[in-house]
């Protein structure tokens, strides 16, 4: 006999029906490729020939012994930290300023969103000029400002290249954080703000005590997406430096690409991607879960 509580109610049945198609798509387009990646990662395979040799966990062990692999992992973690703080922080600041009703608001709104619409390959080409170490715009502006000593070999110095890439990415992606925060701020009932103002709060206080807590849904989306984009970062790094010079700007996704197609080591590349998944799961999933439960709690209140 089936226990009564196992028989789905009409609501549950509808819910399950709603989930059917998305879950089917997910199983086909995500689960199957991931399983095949795990399978490939246990082989030595060049990616196109019929002979595939079973090597067990050898690829995973080899990677763990390579400084190159750890460098990419550390770079990914640095990217997560950067993406959580910088584009998000700037986006929030710009949204907060604009939300106060500034003249020319709509123009600013377009300007801040514009870079986000540009394809990665064009962003890379534009920023290769910006970072040209002797005649590029950044070096030129620093020279004019008497700060010539601060100019760097932006993309050619292994110690500087990651920071340079991050600058370009901040320019590229801040528009996303800005957009979501701006929408979130507009979504806050004016009564809350008015009430606080009548009580004599400064705009600084209003922002941090009233608006910011009400921005949780926006914040979750922006932070979650930033962390995820940072983990699977690929095209901008590949288009600007291909992970160079000498692997210094490499992240896991570019390393995977280089192994698979630069060196015909498909098995090892798959192992990198499985590691990427695992690391991302460890770093990001708890965060996403925590954030989602926060939403549920806040409505339950």
């Amino acid at each position, binding site marked *: 006999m089936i226990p009564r509580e196992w028989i789905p109610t009409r609501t549950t049945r509808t819910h399950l029906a709603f989930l059917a198609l998305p879950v089917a798509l997910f199983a086909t387009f995500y689960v199957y490729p991931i399983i*095949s990646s795990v*399978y490939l990662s246990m*082989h030595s395979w*060049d*990616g*196109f*020939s*019929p002979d*595939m040799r*079973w090597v067990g966990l050898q690829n995973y062990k080899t990677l763990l012994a390579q400084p190159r692999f750890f460098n990419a992992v550390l770079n990914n973690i640095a990217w997560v930290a950067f993406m959580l703080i910088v584009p998000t922080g700037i986006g929030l600041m710009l949204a907060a300023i604009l939300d106060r009703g500034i003249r020319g608001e709509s123009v600013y709104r377009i300007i801040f969103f514009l870079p986000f619409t540009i394809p990665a390959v064009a962003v890379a080409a534009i920023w*290769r000029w910006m*970072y*040209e*170490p*002797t005649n590029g715009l950044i070096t030129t502006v620093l020279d004019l400002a008497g700060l010539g000593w601060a100019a760097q*070999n*932006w*993309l*050619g*110095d*292994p110690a500087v290249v990651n920071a340079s890439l991050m600058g370009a990415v901040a320019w590229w992606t801040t528009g996303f954080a800005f957009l979501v925060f701006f929408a979130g701020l507009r979504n806050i009932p004016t009564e809350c703000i008015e009430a606080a103002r009548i009580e004599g709060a400064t705009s600084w206080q209003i922002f941090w005590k009233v608006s910011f807590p009400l921005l949780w849904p926006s914040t979750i989306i922006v932070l979650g997406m930033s962390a995820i984009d940072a983990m699977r970062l690929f095209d901008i790094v590949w288009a600007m*430096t*291909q992970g*160079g*010079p*000498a*692997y210094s700007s490499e992240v896991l996704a570019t390393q995977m*690409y*280089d192994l*698979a*197609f*630069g*060196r*015909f*080591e498909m098995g090892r590349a798959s192992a990198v991607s499985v590691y990427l998944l695992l690391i991302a799961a460890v770093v990001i999933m708890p965060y996403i879960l925590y954030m989602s439960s926060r939403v549920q709690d806040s409505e339950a209140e």
Partner: protein
Amino acid sequence: MSKSTFLGAMALTALLGSSAYAQDNFEVWHYYAAGSELAGMNALIDYSNSQAKDAKFTGVVVPGNVVELRRQLQTAFLGGRPPAAYQSSMAFELKAFVDGGRLHPIPDVWEQIKGDEIFPAGVQRVVKIGGQPYGVPFDLSLINNVFYNVKLFKELGLEVPTDWDSFAKACSALSKAGYQPLGNAGGTFWSLYNFYSPLVSIVGEEGYYKIARGELGFDSPEFSKALDLYRDKMIPCYAKNWSGKTWTQTADDVVNGSTGMFMMGAWVAAYFEQAGFKGGEGFDLFQAPGTVGKSVFQMDVLAVPAGPEATIAAANQFLVAAASPEGQAAFAVPKGSLAPNVKVDASVYNYAGAKLAKQFSDASAKDAVLPNLFFLLPTALGTELGNQIQRFAIDPSDATKAEVISTLEGLRQEALANKAFIAW
């Protein structure tokens, strides 16, 4: 799941997909998507279309470079719908796909075009795998020339360097006059191509091939000496911040007269011309020290994937047309590269092209042509060599040198154990 089940499943899916697919239009995949490269490719395809009676070819651009094309090919091979022909690099690039059973040998085409006569021996060597030809060369560029700004050389009264001493003199004169002596650019290839000149100086042609065959170790005294020569004579000449520039940005510096010399593949001449900087007036070129009388070259070929007979027959027509003097010139002239076919008349070339063609035929006559080592080595080793040499050029310390040597030697031992080297 066993391997065979897995591959079987893949093959089945491939069959399902390809059964409904009839090819009436034959694709030629390449990554020459821009500028004079695209113009050359389109001219070649147009010419072949005018020659082939019963087949029409369309160029399909895979944006990117050899790495992106490999990715695309891999997918296509596994999915059972490769193109009729594609742009491939030479030597190991062919070997890898031959070993995978993905390429169709072209002895018939080779015989028809008289491949053994129209291509120099050095060129033939890198398109034959196990004695069988697998590609028709169509795009050859020398990579052992130094391009220089004529005005700067005149202004400083500099002689064109012919050996390491005169090269060092030119460097220091340019440097004293406030110019950047020698340009270079960031990336896996450019430092490596420069390094070939000290390498050949020390090990000679014989040693160069020994490295390619895995016979001469990276821990050998010769290789170490070559790194030292590179460190003493070239690296100090490099322009400030070279590693942060793309090759076109460095080429701009030469055009604008802030950098005196630039050792780069012959394609830089096409870039100069496009920028209105003319051969013989704005720029000129000389063979890098240690490679005088020799030619180090990079070359692309057209390869034919294994596939249905009709497709191969069409691809063969394409290759025959591409190998003819007309087809070769159709590509080489707009692209600014050399035609590998020796029957192409030298009068088709511009100033730089003619000089380079002369260099190449002189070197061929002495059998002193050296294919790009990057593609002679097993793929993973060649790629690592490029990365390590760039690393050394950025930081030429003894510590880096030791790491470069041990990394490369480790990979050489691994490749030896796998019998991956080829006796080119």
